[in-house]
């Protein structure tokens, strides 16, 4: 068959790329080979536009066992315990079929974690939808939420955290990012690197069907009117089978049978076999007749490109096949030796006793294209908003506007659809700054959270990038955890557009600077480009997933006020930065100006000292101050509590709007007992932490002296209304 330009383009490859393929092969590829190149060389698998920039991220630290480059990152939390985690996007599939797209996203990220020998212990997600009144939003949100729940609930892993945001730039391109966190024994981590010649390559899990063929290249293209045509490629998730697969793999991992193991994710059998071989510097030979197939007459092309879910590839030590098969039989799963490792450094595909395709592994992996795409720097849009020019409003109304907005509304409509308690180690559920998961049978715990700030990143990506890392770090500190490492999911528009590439590069620089300063390395991640339709691109939306450690946990710290008449302290300085704030957006639809500056030094110092106070058990409750400012944070604390607050008007900053709604960074609210105040003030002063005594808790009412007084009950109602429409 002659490969025409049209066929090349249909495979999502550029003509120049096709020319390099011919050079690498010294010949024209056949269709099977072309399909394999397209699967490996697309943006999603090859990271061709992002790779040179990702290299700049800090990935090392004494807590890091495995950084990026494996199925998931691994960190050390002491006592031979390791935490394995990663985040991944499933944006395009979720827009086409929200339930299945989201479900298989969860399934995929879980496999990345248990592939490494970890039992998953928590799921999180970051989901972004179009404007709340856009016609599709409601059904997309419904579908995505039930898909996430459907998969996680069925497999029995608690979904404990996440974020849900709305903004019109996601109207035609929603974001669904799923994060999984697992626990492993440090000395029992499994990797994907193949070793040894003539070792059995084993296929386990579900059968291969025609689903998801070209899924990875779909994730690497913009949507257009013709995307509908691609619908038949939708994959259906089977969480029941995944549960069996997970248990079977974890059972097999108890002895020393496995040399290497790799899940079949994007680009299925192709990428898993190539990845194992390339990391091991080996070749791999597959006999495709042996691949367990669901449909009749499947071709090698279809088998190699299928993205059927719930499958794994394992390379076994000699002589372990029999025992391993017994385990998979017990769990009613397919287990077939479909090939072996070779010394040819090639991927060799046999079918009907004939070689149907043969490609040097390097051509698919290290020789895949890398682009240094053009990008332009964002010009800072310095624009100060003068409140005097704006229509007068009342503080109370502005607050209500924020609390009743979908982005700030109480999300229990969503989180009640997720089983948060299964496994019986969830000490703090979603709705808090971070979730706390106890390590089974031990008295230590991890805290986990995901965060993004698309508005900040859009207006000034460098600051935005720094800010999300800091916010994420703050969320962990707020529950008393020492932040250890992050994973990141970089959702951006079309990288061939110089402005968007600029957003990417600068966000990444921001992330890098913050991570370096905070000793908060990146251990895994994912990049999702081409989020946009017909040249309308989404806001740059990097999502950060952070993991922290609570060494010895006595009781989980949350943001519920605990007592009447406790003192409230605001940590960090309030300058009154209102540009890019929730206040201006919700009340005036103003979106101009720069995001609040990040002072990494203060961020680190404030965080560390707050953590110290928490560890000394001096804090009753705590909460970080983020979008919506001080007043929103205080309201959030009151809404979940029996107690409200009585706050004094500020002494220094006289504009109340700036004081209460400003989104200055590095701030926390702490509830403390009066008797501890001197001790705490001493620590703060000795460590140069700026703080203010802002008021006290009181019964039932949320009050700013001389300004407003609302009952907690009313606040609760306001905050809960929006989702009731569903």
């Amino acid at each position, binding site marked *: 068959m002659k490969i025409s330009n049209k066929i090349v383009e249909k495979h999502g490859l550029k003509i120049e790329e096709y020319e390099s393929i011919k050079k690498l092969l010294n010949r024209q590829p056949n269709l099977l080979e072309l399909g394999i190149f397209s699967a490996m060389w697309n943006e999603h698998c090859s990271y061709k536009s992002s790779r040179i920039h990702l290299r700049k991220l800090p990935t090392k630290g004494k807590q890091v066992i495995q950084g990026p480059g494996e199925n998931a990152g691994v960190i050390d939390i002491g006592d031979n315990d390791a935490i394995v985690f990663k985040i991944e996007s499933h944006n395009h599939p979720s827009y086409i079929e929200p339930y299945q797209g989201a479900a298989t996203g969860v399934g995929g990220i879980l496999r990345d974690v248990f592939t490494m020998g970890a039992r998953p212990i928590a799921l999180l997600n970051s989901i972004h939808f179009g404007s709340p009144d856009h016609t599709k939003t409601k059904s997309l949100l419904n579908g995505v939420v039930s898909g996430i729940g459907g998969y996680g609930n069925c497999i029995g892993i608690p979904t404990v955290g996440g974020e849900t945001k709305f903004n019109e730039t996601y109207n035609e391109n929603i974001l669904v990012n799923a994060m999984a966190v697992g626990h492993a024994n440090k000395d029992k981590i499994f990797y994907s690197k193949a070793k040894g010649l003539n070792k059995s390559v084993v296929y386990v899990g579900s059968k291969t069907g025609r689903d998801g063929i070209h899924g990875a290249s779909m994730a690497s293209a913009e949507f257009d009117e013709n995307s509908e045509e691609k619908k038949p490629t939708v994959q*259906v998730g089977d969480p029941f089978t995944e549960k069996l697969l997970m248990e079977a793999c974890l059972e097999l991992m108890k002895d020393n049978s496995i040399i290497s193991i790799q899940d079949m994710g994007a680009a299925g059998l192709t990428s898993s076999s190539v990845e194992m071989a390339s990391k091991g510097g080996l070749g791999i030979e597959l006999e495709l007749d042996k691949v367990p197939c669901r449909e009749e007459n499947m071709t090698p092309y279809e088998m190699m490109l299928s993205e059927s879910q719930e499958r794994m590839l394992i390379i076994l030590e000699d002589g372990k096949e029999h025992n391993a098969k017994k385990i998979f039989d017990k769990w009613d799963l397919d287990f077939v030796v479909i090939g072996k490792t070779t010394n040819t450094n090639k991927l060799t595909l046999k079918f009907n006793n004939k070689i149907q395709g043969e490609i040097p592994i390097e051509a698919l992996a290290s020789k895949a294209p890398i682009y240094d795409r053009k990008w332009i720097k964002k010009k800072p849009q310095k624009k100060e908003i003068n409140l005097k020019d704006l229509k007068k409003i009342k503080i109370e109304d502005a607050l209500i506007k924020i609390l009743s907005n979908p982005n700030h509304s109480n999300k229990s409509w969503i989180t009640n659809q997720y089983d948060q308690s299964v496994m019986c180690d969830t000490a703090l559920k979603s709705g808090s700054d971070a979730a706390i998961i106890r390590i089974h049978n031990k008295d230590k715990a991890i805290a986990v959270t995901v965060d993004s700030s698309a508005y900040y990143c859009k207006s000034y990506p460098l600051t935005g990038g720094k800010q999300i890392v800091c916010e994420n770090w703050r969320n962990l500190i707020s529950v008393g955890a020492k932040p250890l490492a992050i994973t990141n999911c970089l959702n951006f528009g079309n990288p061939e557009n110089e402005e968007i590439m600029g957003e990417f590069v600068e966000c990444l620089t921001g992330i890098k600077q913050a991570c370096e300063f905070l000793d908060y390395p990146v251990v895994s991640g994912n990049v999702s480009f081409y989020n946009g339709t017909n040249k309308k691109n989404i806001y740059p939306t990097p999502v950060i997933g952070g993991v922290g450690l609570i060494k010895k946990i006595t009781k989980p710290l949350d943001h519920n006020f605990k007592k009447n008449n406790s003192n409230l302290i605001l940590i960090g300085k309030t300058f009154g930065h209102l540009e890019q704030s929730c206040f201006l957006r919700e009340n005036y639809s103003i979106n101009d100006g720069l995001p609040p500056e990040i002072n990494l030094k203060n961020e680190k110092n404030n965080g560390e000292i707050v953590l110290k106070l928490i560890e000394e058990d001096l804090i009753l409750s705590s909460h970080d101050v983020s979008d919506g400012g001080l007043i929103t944070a205080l309201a959030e604390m009151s809404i979940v509590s029996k107690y409200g607050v009585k706050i004094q008007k500020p002494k220094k900053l006289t504009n109340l709007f700036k004081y209460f709604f400003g989104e200055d960074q590095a701030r926390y609210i702490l509830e403390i007992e009066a008797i501890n105040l001197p001790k705490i003030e001493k620590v703060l002063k000795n460590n140069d932490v700026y703080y203010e005594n802002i008021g006290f808790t009181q019964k039932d009412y949320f009050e700013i002296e001389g300004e407003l007084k609302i009952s907690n009950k009313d606040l609760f109602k306001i905050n809960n209304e929006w989702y009731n429409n569903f």
Partner: protein
Amino acid sequence: MKFSVTVTLKKDVLDPQGKVVQNTLVNIGIKNLKSIRQGKYFEIEVDESELLTAEKIVDKMCKKLLVNLVIEDYKINKI
């Protein structure tokens, strides 16, 4: 006028339920089973006496809500 609508998964779409049900039937000793596919069924009554119009209404329900056109096919029958 009354209609029945049957909704089934498209060919080539994974049917996790069907697989498990089939295995179970075999396990509990049912012989001669060649294949089983599971789907949804609706009985719909509409207040409309003109067949074509009535059918159109039902079709609209299917497209708008009852059927997930991405992965499912459907058939409408008058009953």
